[in-house]
């Protein structure tokens, strides 16, 4: 469970987020929306310890991230799958190796998880690209590789930052479907997006809570969507 208690984040003398409180219940599905530059990415980064709150507390499994050591944060990230806005990969490794990367850094033998890896690649529809290298992939394929990598360690929480940005409608629906499937498996999912059509399209598939960041604060949205 991730809890935010009166969280604020300031950078360069200005406050980007202010007085944000939220409890992300296990198994819930959230959309986080708001205009560009509102602080959606910052919000997600606070949730997985990539940034530390300048006021208030972000608690991962009850522990304030500001009191966690770097190693503790690294270990906590293994339970949080992240699909970043501009997914980066190790370009000298194949798609399969990139997807298996979380296993490797956790010291687990990727060969033992070979079946899981193949299943995961098949799930995101990239079995035929397993030996390709990231620079050879399209935007949609890269996002699916990022999603596969994010769920490789079977995390409890999936945080996706604009996962459908810069990809076509059909592909964004495919990615949304994958995220909904993950939620149905019991995973907590939070998607940051400015794409309201995607949020509307999801209504038939999942019961989602829609949050909006406006004027540095978090608001519950929904009625106007």
């Amino acid at each position, binding site marked *: 469970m991730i809890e935010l208690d009166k969280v604020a984040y300031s950078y360069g003398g200005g406050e980007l987020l202010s007085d944000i409180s939220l409890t992300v219940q296990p198994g819930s599905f959230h959309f986080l929306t708001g205009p560009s530059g509102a602080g959606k990415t910052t919000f997600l980064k606070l949730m997985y310890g990539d940034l530390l709150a300048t006021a208030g507390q972000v608690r991962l499994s009850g522990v304030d991230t500001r009191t966690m050591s770097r190693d503790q944060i*690294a270990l906590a990230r293994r339970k949080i799958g992240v699909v970043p806005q501009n997914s980066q990969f190790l370009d000298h490794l194949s798609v399969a190796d990139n997807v298996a990367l979380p296993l490797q850094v956790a010291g687990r033998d990727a060969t033992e998880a070979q079946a899981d890896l193949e299943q995961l690649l098949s799930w995101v529809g990239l079995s035929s690209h397993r030996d390709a290298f990231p620079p050879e992939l399209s935007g949609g394929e890269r996002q699916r590789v990022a999603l596969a990598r994010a769920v490789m360690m079977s995390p409890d929480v999936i945080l996706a930052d604009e996962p459908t940005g810069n990809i076509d409608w059909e592909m964004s629906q495919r990615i949304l479907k994958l995220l909904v499937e993950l939620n149905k498996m019991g995973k907590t999912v939070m998607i940051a997006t400015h794409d309201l059509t995607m949020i509307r399209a999801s209504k038939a598939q999942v019961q989602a809570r829609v949050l909006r960041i406006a004027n540095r604060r978090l608001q519950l949205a929904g009625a106007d969507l």
Partner: protein
Amino acid sequence: MKATTLAMALMVGDPHSDRVVPPTGFTAQLTSFTSAAMAFLACFALALSVSSGRLADRWAQELSQSLTIRISAPGDQLAVQTQAALAVLETTPGIEEARPLDADEQRALLAPWFGQSLPIEELPVPQLIDVIEASDADLDVDGLRLRLQAEAPGAVIDDHSRWRRPLVQAAQRLRGLSALSLILITGAMAAMVTLAAHAALSANRSVIEVLRQVGARDDYIAKAFVRRFTLRALGGAAVGTIAGMIAVALMPSSEATAGFLTDLGFRGLGWLLPATIPILAGIVAFAATRFAALRTLRTMA
């Protein structure tokens, strides 16, 4: 045990963590070349340090075990005072041998200044007595000086300390400077490896971000860089050390032309000393890269 484990881990490596860092040709070559060059210089500095130390010890030992007695007296008293001095020396503990130089030996000593045909018998040249101290006894030079003053008033002891001390000091300082050079070379190498590691870390910032994002601990990331740089430094230093040892071995031998410079080098088991250079280079590279990696990682989220 921990050091052995660490060395084994460095040699065997972790195939997973090794693969996460892409090959970086330029920094690899820079580290190897720097290590080779520094090891080459370190080999010479070590040879200089060893040789100057050997020289200082030899001068100190050889010169401290001999002294010269000069007897200046009117012609008719010279032989008497020489005999009196020899008698004193014979009864002095700590003296192994005391021998008056004959006319030919004294002529040879003066030849550089006055030529070979010097009529030494006709000149009031002082008589010299060459004294060798026993190596296992402690000679009381002050006591000997007092006894000689009583028995042979024209006798003056020269224990060579006047010119021996600066020579020995010079050799000792040379040894110190060589050791300082070794320290500076080590420091310069650490700085260069640190810079190369920084460059590699900066070039691979996106790789590090990905690794952090998927839950890699700093130690895991650092290890991938540290092993690579340590092995590069070790390999480069090994090549540089071998080249340095060959260069030292090819210096002219002292038998051919006697002198300090021709005596530069290692002897016997001393040839094993340069083997420590690559090991030291590896340790320095390990510490420098680990320090640079962990410091850089701490600046990242």
